[in-house]
């Protein structure tokens, strides 16, 4: 593949907030050429797919395999409901197509294993969308790799999204039915808070846990072996009604005697002036780091500023471009992507173990 010809990209279902396909499209080496999905999907899925296709002035085909073949696709972007992520990724890989997939990798670790097998058998590249190439995280990596703090001993990530997810916990009146997960997620599409869209309810640990766990994995280079977790629905009626967490804490035991922790939650829009508090605390043998993932940022305040507008805006971050640059290089050279299928699977397994620990109250080995 000549570097002068962009990779032809198929978007395989784009039912939730479209930041991943937009991110792919933002890089000059990738060109969206078709949107595709299975014909038997419900109308609301087809509507959203068609709308995205119209936005890019590209066709929408209700046949995934046909689209992959007909449009000479080299890359697939998977942005469906989480429960279909792996199936679409496997089918793309089996068609010889490289894959960029939205998070979470899957709702089941066994599905992740299918992706690994398909990707490795086909010899294609796979990347989970992630935040590892944000300036603050890269700065932490640079300092750690330079030996500035010596050998790693502990790493902690706080990952709080200051977003709402419908009415507060305890607000449901007697006699009112529980909030339906899928319908609530479909309604959240309007403000992009629909990362959990699908029939299967998912808590914050499952939906967003990949981000901080990917930081930890990249910065330490280590596998998580055992976890102890607490999970709860603390903020939102939606999560309480559907038995999933909107707040979780996980203690991590990793290789080389390194430990860590993760605090994650959808803590409500009132709890931070911006997207939320995302912070890394790293302890080494010769020093320690406190890193705010949001920096560099600029504070902007003005009269009649909408309350929903972030007061601090991140600057100097080109995450989408860097991720797709990494992916392009992986395709060109065969080098691993920044978050490949095996890493995605390891993170999914850590999340599963944490959820089990939250249920049992015991430490759980990561399998």
């Amino acid at each position, binding site marked *: 593949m000549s570097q002068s010809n962009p990779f032809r990209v198929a978007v395989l279902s784009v039912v939730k907030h479209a930041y991943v396909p937009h991110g792919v499209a933002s890089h000059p080496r990738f060109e969206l050429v078709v949107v595709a999905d299975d014909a038997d999907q419900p109308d609301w899925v087809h509507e959203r797919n068609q709308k995205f296709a119209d936005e890019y002035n590209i066709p929408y085909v209700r046949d995934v395999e046909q689209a992959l073949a007909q449009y000479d696709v080299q890359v697939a972007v998977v942005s469906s409901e989480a429960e279909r992520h792996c199936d679409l990724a496997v089918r793309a890989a089996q068609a010889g197509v490289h894959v960029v997939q939205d998070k979470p990798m899957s709702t089941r670790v066994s599905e992740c294993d299918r992706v690994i097998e398909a990707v490795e058998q086909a010899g294609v590249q796979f990347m989970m969308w992630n935040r590892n190439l944000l300036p603050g995280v890269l700065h932490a990596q640079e300092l750690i790799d330079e030996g500035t703090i010596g050998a790693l001993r*502990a790493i*902690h990530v706080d990952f709080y999204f200051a977003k709402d997810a419908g009415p507060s916990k305890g607000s449901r009146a007697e006699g009112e039915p529980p909030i339906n997960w899928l319908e609530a997620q479909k309604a959240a599409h309007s403000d992009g808070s629909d990362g959990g869209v699908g029939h299967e309810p998912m808590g914050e640990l499952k939906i967003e846990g990949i981000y901080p766990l990917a930081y930890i994995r990249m910065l330490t280079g280590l596998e998580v072996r055992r976890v*102890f977790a607490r999970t709860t629905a*603390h903020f939102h009626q939606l999560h309480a009604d559907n038995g999933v967490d909107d707040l979780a804490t996980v203690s991590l035991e990793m290789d080389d005697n390194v430990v860590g*922790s993760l605090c994650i939650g959808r803590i409500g829009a009132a709890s931070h002036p911006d997207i939320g*508090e995302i912070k890394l605390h790293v*302890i080494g043998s010769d020093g320690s780091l406190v890193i705010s993932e949001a920096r560099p940022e600029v504070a902007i305040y003005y009269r009649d500023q909408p309350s929903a507008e972030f007061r601090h805006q991140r600057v100097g971050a080109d995450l989408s471009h860097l991720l797709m640059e990494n992916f392009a290089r992986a395709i060109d050279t065969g080098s691993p992507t920044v978050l490949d299928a095996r890493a995605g699977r390891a993170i999914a397994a850590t999340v599963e173990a944490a959820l089990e620990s939250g249920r049992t*109250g015991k430490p759980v080995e990561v399998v």
Partner: protein
Amino acid sequence: MTRIALIGATEALDRFAGVTSHLAEVAIVAVVDGDLDSARTVADVLKADLAVNLFDTLLDEHCDQFDAMVIHASIPYRAERARRAIDAGKHVLIDSPLAPSIAEAQELTKAADSADVRLMVSQPTRFAPDYAAVKKSLDDGKLGTPGLLRMHRWESPRDAGSLWKRVTRELDLAYWLFQSLPSEVYCMARSKDEEPDYLQIHLGFAGGGMALIDYCQALPEGQPYESLTLVGSRGTAYADQHHNTQLLFQGDYPLAMRTAGSQRADLLQLAEFDSAIREHRTPSISGADGQAVLQILLEAVGPSLDLDKAMRLQGGSYEPV
């Protein structure tokens, strides 16, 4: 005027310098330390009339010259000295943990009640202006129900005492903010050389609340670091030293320095002790509070480390899960 005897000179100087200019109704009248020269030096600075090197001398020969005692002593001796002070009718402010065992802590509390003297456990962190502001926002209802407490504290190596007993301040903060004993406790410790210098404590509370404590004693010599975040159902408070640093440029990378507030936690705590004495009421950190923290430490944190298991509160005691 509440007349106070300080037990333990070195700690006293650091924590009570300037007390007379801040607390008009409190006077430091005596300093006791095994090193008489140290006792005299500190007494001089604090304008105390009496410096002695024996606790017995204070009680036997000067009992009518003070009303209350602030006890800094190693853990095995603390409770014994506190008990003798209480038996002599003196109010006591004692470092945490207040005793080497829960039973001794219970005895102390009962003795203080029987003698009708005030027993207060020292946790100056509760009076630190930033943490007091977090608590106030919680008590005012601004944060709703507490869901997650995240604490980091890093400092340079200390040369005495078990690592896990140094986290009583974080355990007390968690107990104070959640207003209950944790229902689950899970701990991990790590060592750089022979002795552990890193501790991670994971707490669960009834109703789903949780806390994570990261305590490290391995920072290079220099300023310590601490940070506390309390996430509640309605709002979140961030008492984060990362935000509260100033920059000093002297070439190369700038130094990040913390600006100390003018209010001092130790003096605010002493003021509360004095108020409790005057008002004849239970102090804000009582013997029962000290007992609770000791129970978390001895029945949950220690055993969780030893057994490599989570501990669960069942029927008033912690059992392995």
